């Protein structure tokens, strides 16, 4: 009874456009009051206490640091130089610029950890040059949005950090290692239909006449950017830094590259970068901590286990349940960003995963893949929203292109479900 009020209130609040975090907080608070009518202050003191406790976790510091890292590298001019290098390598021709967009988005995914930020950085550089080369704008927007979706799989990833906070037995390094192979696989699976579509519809005819940048000069200029993921991932692998420290070291490295080497970041830009990163971190952290109130209310009502039990014993079987979860989460992923989805659903899904004895690292990667698909599936995809805004096209116009890419990414999801080793091999090999 109280549980159904909790969920209905949450859904109504979400539909009228209340921020996710607050909708969770309100629903949780109402449920707490209804369950504690006869106690001191109606049990409401749990609300500020959970808020405080929800943020008093040192690993959460990784979130503002990785967000700041993303903001800095978005403006550091690394993206443009990586594009030059990639063009120098693959050459000019129909389908090459879109391929470069995906490759650069994947590479930036190895520095920053959030999809929309990556879509903005790559979109700002690539969408204009792609339309100059004769690619239709809706196609360019689709490619950038899909490429940026690999970002939350390729380490470092804010979504995986959140998952690790919710599921302590899946450590951040293990999740990061597990995301690597599926992330690269996703990138490859996106490149194939992209190049095929470009060739088939004879797009980018003007591209062949554009100059090809010299290889060595491009390599030297891009080397500062190329070193960043080595520093972050290598430093973590060698045990020099924790994920949070790796982020902060890369923040100072990025500032050095942006301010001293490329001189694209001016002193006066710093306050804007820091402000933007602070606000975005606060937005994420508010959902994190208010979701804690919701989860606490759920756990005191003890409704999770009966629901999980009912699902486990529903006769659908392991793969039936998994298929159901995939459909459900891909639909939700169209409406909501990955972090909110994790915070709302991981506490609910964990008992199910445990009942089926699923590997929790593998499960995290599956969830992240679903969310990644949702990030560029119209009509409400966050990445596509960003890239359409840059390309100045309505989202409907992208549908004929983007659905191919959605299908490609779903194929990767299917592969990782069928062959769990794709996700679990690397962390096991590295000994996490």
């Amino acid at each position: 009874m109280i549980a159904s009020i909790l969920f209905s209130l949450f859904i109504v609040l979400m539909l009228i456009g209340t921020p996710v975090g607050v909708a969770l907080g309100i629903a949780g608070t109402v449920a707490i009051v209804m369950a504690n009518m006869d106690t001191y202050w109606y049990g409401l003191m749990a609300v500020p206490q959970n808020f405080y406790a929800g943020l008093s976790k040192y690993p959460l510091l990784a979130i503002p640091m990785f967000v700041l890292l993303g903001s800095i590298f978005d403006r550091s001019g690394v993206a443009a130089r990586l594009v030059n290098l990639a063009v120098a390598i693959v050459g000019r021709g129909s389908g090459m610029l879109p391929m470069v967009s995906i490759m650069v988005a994947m590479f930036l995914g190895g520095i920053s950890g959030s999809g929309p930020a990556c879509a903005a950085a790559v979109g700002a550089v690539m969408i204009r040059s792609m339309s100059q080369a004769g690619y239709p704008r809706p196609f360019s927007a689709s490619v950038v949005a899909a490429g940026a979706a690999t970002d939350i799989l390729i380490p470092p990833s804010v979504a995986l950090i959140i998952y690790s906070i919710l599921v302590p037995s899946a450590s951040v390094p293990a999740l990061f290692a597990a995301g690597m192979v599926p992330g690269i696989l996703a990138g490859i699976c996106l490149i194939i239909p992209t190049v095929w579509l470009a060739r088939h519809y004879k797009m980018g005819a003007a591209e062949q006449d554009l100059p090809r940048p010299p290889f060595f000069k491009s390599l030297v200029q891009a080397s500062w950017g190329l070193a960043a993921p080595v520093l972050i991932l290598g430093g973590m692998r060698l045990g020099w830094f924790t994920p949070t420290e790796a982020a902060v070291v890369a923040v100072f490295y990025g500032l050095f590259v942006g301010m001293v080497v490329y001189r694209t970041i001016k002193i006066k830009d710093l306050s804007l970068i820091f402000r933007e990163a602070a606000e975005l971190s606060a937005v994420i952290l508010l959902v994190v901590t208010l979701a804690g109130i919701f989860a606490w209310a759920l756990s005191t009502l003890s409704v999770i286990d009966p629901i999980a039990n009912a699902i486990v014993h529903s006769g659908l079987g392991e793969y039936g349940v998994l298929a159901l979860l995939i459909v459900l989460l891909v639909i939700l992923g169209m409406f909501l960003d990955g972090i909110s989805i994790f915070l709302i659903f991981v506490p609910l899904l964990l008992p199910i995963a445990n009942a089926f004895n699923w590997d929790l690292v593998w499960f995290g990667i599956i969830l992240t893949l679903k969310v990644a698909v949702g990030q560029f599936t119209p009509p409400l995809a966050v990445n596509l929203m960003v890239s359409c805004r840059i390309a100045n096209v309505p989202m409907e116009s992208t549908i004929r292109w983007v659905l191919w890419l959605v299908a490609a990414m779903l194929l990767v999801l299917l592969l990782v479900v069928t062959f769990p080793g794709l996700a679990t091999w690397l962390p096991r090999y590295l000994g996490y």
Partner: protein
Amino acid sequence: MSSDQTDKTQTETAAQEFPDAANHKRLKLEDCLSVFIMGVLALITFANVLVRYFSNQSFAWTEEISIFFLIILTMVGSSSAFVRYQHIRIEYFADHGSAAKKWWFSIASNASVLLFFVLFTVLSLKMALDDYTYGDTSPAIGVPNWWYSMWMPLLSLLITWRLAGIMQDLIKVRPT
């Protein structure tokens, strides 16, 4: 929400109807604090790496300070994010349909958020007062807990104030 502009792209949100320039002045307090805290957090964490590298020591007290700043950052940044409409929400249903419907949806959702933060201000004040009365001290540094918890009601009041401002703006633009 007053104007009946045709949506050129489906991505138009309420954010575009509030000019950001006005917000820059209005949110000076939050913005300065955000930049400052973000900078301090980065510096503390970086200093930790250096100190550990050179002396094989790590200071536990920085963790407590960082966590405190994390809480302040969340509340200060949330405050400006409410005014700039940056919070994560489902925009689809709220930003489509007639002007009157959109207006009622915004009023209802803003009223819910406002009520929540009014309640939260009261509850966090109670929590801070409890910390003060019982004299609990923090685990790592040993300072009184209320030094940390007293900022929650204050910042919650700031958020409430901003939300009331948004409400006032919304009431003014009621479509006729």
